[in-house]
């Protein structure tokens, strides 16, 4: 049982750290929630199942001065690598407990499948089947049907960096070409269709900034230029151009840094494909500079550096 082994792993490092970050049961069976453990007896409330979707590494930069143990999935570990590249954490202050992951659950997709009925119970089978019990009866779903889109093309199911690994390493069986297939497909649309698509999507934005707050790489936090009055980048007006601008700020500040953990899309209450813009930029960064965020701790984000002769950038003619 992974949960039990995870508890043992955390108990093993508990004396070395100030706080341990893991998951606990949320307000109902369908939700897990992050937990901060400072007392050894708290370890028992820890859980592990496909509902543990959150990227716990988001808390690391704010805990930079503390010693922290953190539970990470493959996708979350890329965030840690990116933090290391940008010097946002001290690696020696973090104990990484990695869990190879077969995919997590999108709560929204489960709720959609069960017509938003209150969930009584949820159980997980060996081969990725999920049994959801509601007042209206039982329904069996497949993990592959209710996982977030990022899991469908996951290339790194086993954490890239870890100090202790709980469970056996898994290698990805998904083709690397599938990762950006949707982006390439979107680029087949005409300019007008694309503009219309984004206008429609961004028009739904309620500027709650949940995407920004959930984003582990959005490190400006309280001094985000979307809210500062000086400089006054965007106003509080609820117009499309202000919403569009907000999403551009988010995307461009993450250019070549986004580790595609999908937290922004998970947090978005309006179901806007927030991650798509950043993934498009990542695809370009890969083509131009052969760079993939969150893979090599020694790498440098492409926009933080330069080459005197850029062979891949051709001069543009009018």
């Amino acid at each position, binding site marked *: 049982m992974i949960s039990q082994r995870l508890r043992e792993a955390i108990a093993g490092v508990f004396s070395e750290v100030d706080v341990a970050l893991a998951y606990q049961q949320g307000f109902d069976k369908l939700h897990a929630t992050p937990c901060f453990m400072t007392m050894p007896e708290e370890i028992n409330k820890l859980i592990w199942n496909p509902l543990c979707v959150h990227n716990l590494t988001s808390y690391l930069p704010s805990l930079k001065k503390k010693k922290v143990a953190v539970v990470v999935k493959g996708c979350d570990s890329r965030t840690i690598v990116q933090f290391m590249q940008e010097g946002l954490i001290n690696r020696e202050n973090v104990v990484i407990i990695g869990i190879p992951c077969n995919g997590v659950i999108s709560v929204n997709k489960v709720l959609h499948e069960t017509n938003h009925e209150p969930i009584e119970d949820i159980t997980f089978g060996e081969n990725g089947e999920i049994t959801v019990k509601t007042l209206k009866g039982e329904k069996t779903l497949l993990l592959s049907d209710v996982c977030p889109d990022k899991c469908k093309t996951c290339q790194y199911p086993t954490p890239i960096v870890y100090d202790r690994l709980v469970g056996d390493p898994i290698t990805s069986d998904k083709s690397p070409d599938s990762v950006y297939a949707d982006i390439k497909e*979107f*680029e087949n649309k005409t*300019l*007008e*269709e*694309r*503009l*219309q*698509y*984004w*206008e429609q999507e961004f028009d739904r934005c309620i500027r709650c900034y949940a995407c920004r707050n959930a984003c582990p790489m959005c490190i400006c936090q309280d001094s985000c230029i979307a809210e500062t009055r000086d400089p006054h*980048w965007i106003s509080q007006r609820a117009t499309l*151009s202000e919403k*569009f*601008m907000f999403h*551009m*700020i988010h*995307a*461009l500040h993450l*250019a*070549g840094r986004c580790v595609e953990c999908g937290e922004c899309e998970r947090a978005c209450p309006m179901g806007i494909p927030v991650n798509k*813009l950043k993934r*498009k*930029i990542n695809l*370009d*960064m890969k083509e*131009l*500079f052969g760079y993939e965020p969150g893979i090599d701790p020694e790498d440098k984000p*492409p*926009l933080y550096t*330069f*080459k*005197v002769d*850029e062979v891949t*950038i051709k*001069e*543009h003619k*009018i």
Partner: protein
Amino acid sequence: MSDVAARELRIVGFLCNWCSYGGADTAGVSRFKQPTDLRIIRVPCSGRVDPLFIVKALLNGADGVLVSGCHPRDCHYTDGNFYARRRLEMLKRLLPFLGIDERRFHYTWISASEGGKWQQTVTDFTKRVHELGPLHAKKEATP
């Protein structure tokens, strides 16, 4: 007077203080004829140009944006334009993804002595933006 016989469009130009702004000045001093659609904003270096400046301009009424700095290796601050080159190329590739024609945005390198190149660039770019027409035509028609 504008070279292009049509309604004047709004083109924003971000020019670096040391080369391109000087280049534009050279063109002016040499009395080269230039289209008047361009509004120049002088910046200390092309590395000062945040891609968000360009997006903000395009979203808020500009029909085209031109960025020009010193030639690579000639930056007054040694490496500002090297950073700019990567950022601007990233934006150039992102704009069509958003549904904005990438031809509305151009970045180039012009030195203080290249008045002729400046005139050519402005004329050609203005012509191209005029061919594309106003970016916000729809919105302006229904205020």
